[in-house]
């Protein structure tokens, strides 16, 4: 449950010991270093029930995870998960067949989606045990973090503009 002071949540998803699967965690850590107002940062393993639990109570959630879609490594993909459905295999290297994509769609089926939910997927290259981030993926961290911040700032501005 999100503390009422922190309406917004940045969720870094992945496994820090599996190469590029750590990219969501790296982006979240960057945000955590100087978090925007009313924003909590969490890191979770790519497991649907843990993901759904982590965003309970949040008004807006930006989740970041690694992707394996065949795009060039380091490619950043944005999905407005409230507006559009998310592919079941979106995110990470979890073989449990129950990752971020399923968490979003299960939450949608149960009527438990956060009011705002944006996903950033960053295409990975190397998901080896204990591997560091590969250069193109490491190179995408800064831009991804900047886009996460822009998203949060737009939400804050939209809230402030409300009468």
């Amino acid at each position: 449950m999100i503390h009422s002071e922190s309406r917004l949540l940045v969720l870094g998803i992945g496994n820090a010991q599996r190469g590029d699967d750590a990219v969501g965690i790296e982006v979240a850590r960057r945000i955590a270093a100087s978090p925007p107002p009313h924003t909590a940062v969490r890191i979770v393993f790519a497991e649907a029930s843990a993901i759904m639990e982590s965003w309970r109570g949040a008004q807006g959630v930006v989740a970041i995870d690694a992707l394996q879609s065949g795009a060039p490594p380091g490619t950043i993909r944005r999905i407005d998960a409230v507006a559009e459905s998310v592919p079941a295999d979106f995110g990470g290297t979890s073989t449990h067949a129950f990752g971020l994509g399923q968490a979003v769609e299960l939450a949608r089926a149960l009527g438990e989606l956060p009011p705002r939910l944006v996903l950033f997927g960053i295409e990975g290259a190397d998901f080896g045990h204990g591997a560091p981030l590969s250069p193109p993926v490491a190179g995408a961290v800064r831009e991804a973090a900047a886009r996460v911040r822009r998203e949060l700032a737009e939400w804050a501005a939209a809230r402030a503009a409300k009468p």
Partner: protein
Amino acid sequence: MAKTRTIKVDYLARVEGEGALYLKLAGNRVEDVKLKIFEPPRFFEAFMRGRGFAEAPDITARICGICPVAYQMSSVHAMEDALGVKVGGMLRELRRLLYCGEWIESHGLHVYMLHAPDFLGYQDAIRLAKDHPDEVKRGLRLKKIGNELVTLVGGREIHPVNVRVGGFYKAPRKADLLKLKDDLEWARDAAVETARWVNAFKFPEFEQDYEFVSLCHPGEYPFNEGRLVSNRGLDIGAEEYGAHFQEQHVAHSNALHSVRTGGGAYFVGPQARFALNFEKLPAICRDLAKELGLETPCRNPFKSIVVRSIEIVFAFEEALRIVKAYEEPDRPHVEVAPRAGIGHAATEAPRGMLYHRYELDEKGLIVSAKIVPPTSQNQKQIEDDLAKFVPPRAHKKQDELTWECEQAIRNYDPCISCATHFLKLNVERTP
């Protein structure tokens, strides 16, 4: 000549890891059945050589994100066997509590998200959730409480970090465990409702005369300790495992097939434990089985979902017992000194018995390691089930038959990642 027909499932859904099924029918006769495990083998046994004994629980926990506790438990018990250490009292109780958490997490995921959709005709849990939201929410909450148990005792919910040879790095505080009591009581009752819910599903008529194998302990439903027994007279200590079980390489699988020496397939997991240890279940589980009309032994593998649900009730009841009686131990672990030796252990992972054997040198470094996961033990039994399950149903349409074959595989809650240290379905038919 009968025409042939194949059933192929290239990537089995709702199983842990990557595998496939290939089944070739000539008329109503199954000519070939292969449960293919093509997730690459992960060579854990090889890369543990030369590592210290104390590293085994943390390294082996990485084999699986669903059942890391099982790997930790089998490894610490095997190491303690090699090093002449016995862990008792509250530390032993904490190990059981940690195992309760893992059974709840794993069984909860399988019953609600992976297996229930088969019986209710849904492609996946998301479509199940649209029509049965209250049940799915109940399943998620049950699983969450399992996660909390593992986090509290194990340090975090996936790949716990608090387990060591000799005990734990840190014992949980009594006050923290007691905070879980109300949730555990809710969850035990919700688990009873779960068992009633799944027992109303329609089960295919299918029974086999299995050799069930599980741990058997004189006083308790088995997690960490006991002899390896079967309904056909096996009764051995873990150190005798190698003389009674064999691993065979088959070309179609990256997981080794296990068979009984001089025999064939055998069955590990919830139904085996239930068949061999029914009397050790607490009254709430035995009464529930009676209410549900569940016979023991239960020889219909499709009813594994009911047995698994009764084991969830057991895990919550056992967790409550331990939490209520818990007293913080003086020390979180017993001292362990390195020495040369060989150690064996078998513990009960959610999907069945998990055997570890280690040989250590005088510095406590690992000379050799052997790990036999439950899914590789069940692999041949799954193929045997399919070979007998399909012929009476060979007249069915391809998509219906394929669905039922996948369901038959999921009866075993296969954990393919573990087994390769292991699934895709091909059914080929000659009509």
